[in-house]
């Protein structure tokens, strides 16, 4: 089942919702979350949340100021959590 999950993500060219993936694999969404967490821990999948970027200083020729980072910046919209295959960069 765990390998089937990896194969399904690898073979699917589209973006899938968690519900769609659960239906394809015929597993409960809660079980699928656990399976995904397992592969994230193993380093084969990566889970991301846009908006989780840490605060950073921005420096330019005009000087430095502190960007609050996506996590604290009030203009960052809450985006859905995503999971994708982890590849070597």
């Amino acid at each position, binding site marked *: *089942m*765990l*390998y089937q999950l990896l194969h399904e*993500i*690898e*073979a*699917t*060219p*589209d*973006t*899938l*919702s*968690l*519900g769609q*993936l659960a239906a394809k694999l*015929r*597993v*409960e969404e809660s*079980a699928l979350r*656990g*399976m*995904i967490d*397992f592969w994230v821990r*193993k380093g084969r999948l*990566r889970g*991301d*949340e*846009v*908006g*989780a*970027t840490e605060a*950073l200083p*921005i*420096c*330019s020729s*005009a000087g430095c*100021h502190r*960007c*609050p*980072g*996506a996590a604290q*910046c*009030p*203009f*960052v*919209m*809450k*985006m*859905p*959590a*995503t*999971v*994708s*295959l*982890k*590849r070597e*960069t």
Partner: protein
Amino acid sequence: MPHTTLSTRPLVNYGQPIETELEKLAAIIAANPALAKRYPPRWLAIQLLERDDDLLAEVQSAGATEVLAALDETFNRLEPLFGADVDVALANARYRFVNNLVHQIVKTPANPTESLSDRVDRIVTNQWLGIPIFLGIMWFVFKITTDVATPMLDWISNTLAGPITHRTLALLQAVHLQNTWVSSLLVDGVIAGVGGVLVFVPVLMSLYLALALLEDSGYMARAAFVMDRFMHIIGLHGKSFLPMIVGFGCNVPAVYATRTLENRRDRILTGLLVPFMSCGARLPVYVLFTAIFFPQYAGAVIFGLYLLGILAAIGVGMLLRKTLFIQTERTALVMELPPYRPPNPPTVWQYIWERTSAFIHNAWTMILAASLVVWLLMAIPMRGGSFGNTPVNDSAFAVLSNGLAQTVFKPLGFGNWQNSGALVTGFVAKEVVVSTLAQEFNADNTAASRTVETTWQEDLRDTVVSFGQAAVDTLKTIPAVVGINLFPADTTTDQPSTLMETIRAEFEQVSGGHGTLAALAFLVFVLLYTPCVATLAAQRQEFGARWMWLGVVGQTSLAWMLALLIFQGGKLLGLG
């Protein structure tokens, strides 16, 4: 006391090779009293096979060398069968067991009823309907943003130009500073510049309200899902659209959000596309110009600009994908979509308040600083006059801006020093385009020539009365947004301000009578050229100076070419 098993047969069967090894290992553990006393032998054997570091350390500290030796031998025997993934085989068996159990126990009807969320999702995230629905919702958002906010926008504008300016002048008069450069600084620098941007707070609040409702209801995640899938279809990395959506709020965190992309080339590609997304700072420019040139279709034009930004990003992305970023590979993406829910009023208010207060803070810091620099340059005489008392056309700012206006912006239809100067200061932040225009066109009506003809009581009464009228007018616009026109338009209250009239006249004059086309070209230029220095700094930090400069040159060139196409093409076709 040693642990006893409740059942002789374990619930989960891990398959023959693993079960054989587990039995051997469990027997060795059971023979060690220190370990058997604390843990069930089979359970501990499973944990050790799954490489639980804490338990392994405990076994080592217990001096159970026979268990460690047996574990090594077990791995040696299992690795030819499972590679280094013995733990995966164990976890896999457990998930298979749980899944089978669920299928045996949970009775699902042959035709299960869909939840409301699933039914809505079937339409909203549909492959063919998803994008039109997303575009329809965004169009509605901009219609609300422009229509509902207009009365309050007018109220703030009139209050700044009237009572606040009057009281500032009266105060200056009281301390004998009227008709001095201090008076000019406060009225033409601070009130015209910062006030010119603060006028748009109601528009931004309306936009933030609409976005908060979409986000808190769970729709925004669907919008990301639908557009993300679309990006995938056209060959761009699906995950790219998430930072791009963040770019609608502010391009700086959007550049940082590209970190969620694993591949550096994908990060750079997305980071170069993010500035095409219309950030909130560009909205005041859109609102001002649509109110002047497209008053009947303001929402539609603003929506069109946002859409053009997305299309430009897609077009440039596809081009870069086929040239500089060929090697990047496509990867599938799974998104967790939250269930739909009614928006929570405190959360919505917090969303609006945080964003609006950040915008106001920005106006009092960066925009104030930019306004003061512009004022200073407009106060310095280049062709006669004295400091703070020079015709604005002879000021340092006008002379410096005019060179660029005549060479770069003339073919685009907006080649005067005012527009050129506003676009240059717009590199600081896009709101500064509006504050600079307000200062430039306000400068002719100099502080020195102004007199206070109202008392503070009259100003206060006007402010309160006009606020009440604006509040009533705001309520009247709400049914009209959904197509119910209960109140006929009162044309007498929709008079354009002096600033708006001046901008229209200048555009008509500089474009040779094609003011509307020139204004559209100006808006497209503002949409597409480099957003601000903070975004550039973020790009430089994330991707290096080379990519940052490529972005600046590419975006500004594209902005210039599209603006040229709109103005010259429109003229050729007899439009505008």
